[in-house]
């Protein structure tokens, strides 16, 4: 386990800011305790300092996971955000997409969101903006990337993709082994 280097922190923040913008500050500077990011086996974990201090007592090879895993760095140092970060992305999300009950299931199986399944979308969403996907009952389902701007979404035909799927909570069951 080690702290992130400057480049790694930058890459990660860039990725996070795609979804939550400047609200990253609220993750770093929390009123209810000092939380930090640490890297272990190429995965980034977000934990309080209390947990960190306890985790130092476990040997490197035996330590599986600490706190919440936000994502991992690939071999080429690109940062990939995992579904486990949803709890922290959802409350601070800047651009949200609501999915109709009918196509919730489809999204949770890993499919992209089509115009026909789109319930609501925040105004002024840019194309390829990171968005958090909610159900109509405001339950966060996952996150993705907006395929079209809000304006465009109104014009396109119902079978075209409006949100590219990136992660959904169905992954907890589908890819149980790979998530830490």
């Amino acid at each position, binding site marked *: 386990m080690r702290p992130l280097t400057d480049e790694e922190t930058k890459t990660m923040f860039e990725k996070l800011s795609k979804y939550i913008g400047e609200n990253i500050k609220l993750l*770093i500077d929390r009123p209810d305790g000092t939380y930090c990011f640490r890297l272990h086996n190429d995965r980034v974990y977000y934990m309080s300092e209390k947990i960190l201090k306890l985790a130092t007592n476990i040997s490197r090879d035996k330590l599986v996971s600490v706190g919440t895993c936000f994502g991992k760095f690939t071999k080429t140092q690109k940062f990939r955000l995992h579904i486990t970060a949803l709890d922290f992305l959802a409350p601070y999300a800047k651009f949200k997409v609501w999915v109709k009950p009918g196509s919730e299931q489809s999204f949770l199986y890993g499919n992209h969101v089509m115009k026909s399944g789109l319930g609501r979308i925040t105004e002024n969403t*840019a194309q390829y903006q990171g968005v958090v996907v909610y159900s109509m009952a405001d339950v966060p389902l996952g996150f993705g990337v907006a395929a079209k701007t809000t304006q465009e979404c109104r014009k396109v035909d119902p079978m075209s993709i409006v949100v590219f799927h990136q992660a959904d909570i169905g992954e907890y069951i589908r890819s149980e082994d790979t998530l830490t």
Partner: protein
Amino acid sequence: SCSVEDVLAKAERDEAEKLKGITVSKELDLEFDPGNLLAFDKNRIDTREFKDSKREDFLRSLARDNTQLLINEIWKLPTERVEEVIVAKLPDPTTLLPREKPAPKPKPPTKWEQFAKLKGIQKKKKTNLVWDEVHKEWKRRWGYKRAKDDTKEWLIEVPVNADPNEDQFAKRNKAKKERVARNEYNRLKNIARAQKIKVPGMGLAPTPQQSKAELAQAVNIAKISTASVGKFQDNLPKEKTPKNTGKKRKFQPLIGDFSSEKQKQLDLLKVMDSKKPRLDITKAVNKQMREEDMESRKKNKKDFGKKGQRGKMSGKGRKPQMKQGKR
């Protein structure tokens, strides 16, 4: 009856006896080198005397005679008294003794000597003492209490472009130590070159038997010891370029100062924000969209009767997160 004649005769006989002891008659006189306590006898030896029975006696008498002559020679030298003992002062030896050890081989020239020969630089004889104007006395040119020793200055002016907190005295001392160390290193290198001692390069073990890892390291060092730091060195047929030849990375401590870590991250965010361009693109796109909508609305107004206004609404002036109308 003791008469005077008898006594005189006896004395004479005793003298003769003594003289016989110390006089030795030889055909050829011996050559002496009292400095080396050496007597050189060139007289012929009668081979008849060398028969088995008479040999020992002959050799003994010969040795006795020659030693007697040598000691006679020593008695002729000037004497002095050293701690109540009469000692003869030996002159310098005259015989040239051959060398004990072989003559030294000429040493190969040092790097400087080679360079001087190449450039044709002659050695200039310099005086050992130099007049020191400041102290008004003659001082050595080099060595202990020399004339111009810059480490012994009591006042050093700080140069204009130097760091004001730098210790100039320590700087001079350090420079001197480095010069001394370099001189010593070069001297040893000259010796190694002269005696053809193999000196390993930087960072290699001076052992005759090297392990596989050490040899690999030596190969790598040799490979990068070119002017282009090994960039254009081809690999051998089955050689692989080593990949982890960089410095080991150093990371921050795991539980460092949390507040400083936080601050660093916040600063990073600030920098990132300042670098992000403001939402020009989206604004431009939205503006374009609105314009297109306006145009299409105008068009629809013209064909008012045809199909009625479709649910195309512009975003401006409306509440955000509005529902999309069905087509």
